């Protein structure tokens, strides 16, 4: 039943107009960066790491907020969980399914945008490998040796990041049944963290794990670059889900 519910809920989010809108906006930013924001000639392999994914440190939280994060609060505001939970679905399972669906939908939006950027790169950028002289990507050694793989890793990190950011809507939506507040939180948290957290605290800032070309490489030791992002976003999502479940149990939300 869980898999079915996740699929239904995710489909609900993916078929909304705002999903397509955010995919288009994110892809447009990526294509713009391909054409404009690079200091050396791009080649197809490595072009996403070097330029196409640059805007995602700001766009990913927007995608998470607009596509998914407000979904639980929106449903609660309408009393819709009543109808679901009275069908034998426990509160925790409902929240887990909702979190998974929100993550899937947000991740899918980022993935779709990244695919569009890659397709655009195939058309707009000459073939070959991008030189890594002034660009790093999430794993500089990988960009230098396997630029196409570096692109795929960067996309994977961004998809995970967007998915995890969307789960903030479970924590916020459980506490406040207001769609707009829940939708704004991923962006506000990311931007606020980029300004407020400095020094050692940048290790826990979501901005660090979204800005893959500078912050990520600068803050984290090279040996952790391959695992730090997945671990950070997994912890982020579990914290959000745990907070949501604890608050929902205490407040008997529905």
């Amino acid at each position, binding site marked *: 039943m869980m898999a079915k519910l996740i699929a239904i809920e995710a489909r609900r989010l993916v078929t909304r107009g705002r999903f397509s809108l955010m995919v288009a906006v994110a892809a447009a930013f990526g294509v713009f960066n391909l054409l404009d924001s690079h200091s050396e000639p791009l080649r197809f392999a490595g072009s996403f790491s070097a330029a196409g994914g640059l805007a995602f440190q700001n766009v990913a939280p927007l995608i998470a907020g607009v596509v998914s994060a407000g979904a639980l609060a929106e449903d609660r505001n309408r009393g819709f969980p009543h109808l*679901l939970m009275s*069908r034998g*679905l426990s509160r925790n399972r409902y929240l887990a399914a909702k979190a998974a669906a929100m993550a899937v939908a947000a991740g899918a939006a980022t993935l779709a945008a990244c695919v569009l950027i890659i397709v655009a790169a195939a058309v707009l950028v000459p073939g070959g490998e991008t030189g890594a002289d002034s660009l790093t990507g999430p794993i500089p050694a990988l960009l230098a040796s396997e630029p196409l793989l570096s692109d795929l890793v960067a996309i994977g990190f961004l998809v995970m990041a967007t998915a995890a950011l969307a789960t903030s809507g479970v924590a916020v939506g459980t506490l406040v049944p207001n769609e707009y507040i829940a939708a704004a939180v991923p962006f506000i948290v990311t931007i606020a963290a980029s300004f407020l957290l400095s020094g050692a605290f940048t290790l826990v800032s979501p901005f660090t794990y979204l800005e893959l070309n500078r912050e990520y490489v600068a803050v984290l030791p090279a040996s952790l670059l391959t695992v730090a992002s997945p671990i950070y976003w997994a912890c982020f999502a579990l914290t959000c889900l745990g907070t949501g479940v604890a608050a929902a149990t205490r407040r008997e939300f529905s």
Partner: protein
Amino acid sequence: MSSPGPAVRLEGVGKRYGRHWALRGVDLHLLPGEVLGFIGPNGAGKSTLIRLLAGLARRSEGTVEVLGLRLGDRAMSPDGIGLVPESPQFIPYLSGRRNLEFLAAIRTVAGPAEIAKVLARVGLDPADRRATRKFSLGMRQRLGLAQALMERPRLLLLDEPTNGLDPAGIVELRGIVREAAAGGTAVFMASHLLTEVEQVCDRVILVRDGSIVKEVRRSEQPPEKTVRVVVSGDPDLDALEQWAQRRGAPLTPADPKEGPRARLVPVPTSTPELIRELVGAGVSIEEIATVRRSLEREFLDLVSSA
């Protein structure tokens, strides 16, 4: 053959929010095929009780057993519940039918044919592709009823089901509720429309401050039979009051619209005997009629005594 167990059994149930008891010491049972009405002033605990029965909230004390499942410390909904919440809301950008298909996919009990049938039963067009955001309150209420009925529930919980329904819709609702009960579904209905509750329910419980204060059975005779007596003149009114004093039967002024010489008189034995006594006491009677103590009266007494 053993009779089926109760669909709902509550014993000493209480529900506390912080320091406030929303329900306290509630004992009730509801049998399959029975329609139980639940009325009380605002804040009496009606919605809290429906949340407890639907498994959406945990009891703070007592025993809650719904459809054979004892609901313990964890809030969980037993299988077989149909819930119509107060002012049901749906996914606004989907049609009524798509909303039901979405909900039906959770239990996979109702298929497209059942969904179309139940939509037609509640007076909605199964082919209507309008998004539910364009539905009126009454249409949403009908859709709420449809989602509760589509999986053939064994317990139907209705929280103010007549909200927004037009008179025809209310009559249809009455038929639907009786039909569900005839099919063995236990129905629990909280409503402010007292006449509706009175007409459709087998039993009605009155609640105040989270406690059941009275239970009225539809089949029961009113506990005290009353007649409305209109006398001919003021001397007859004096004679009536003297008779009442001798008999220890308190008179109550009737509705002012009945005139100044109308009184409600409790019947000590039987109505023919009462008439003989009044005539014997020199009371000249213009009109006499049996008055059934309505649920409305009970409710108003309940509210005024709060």
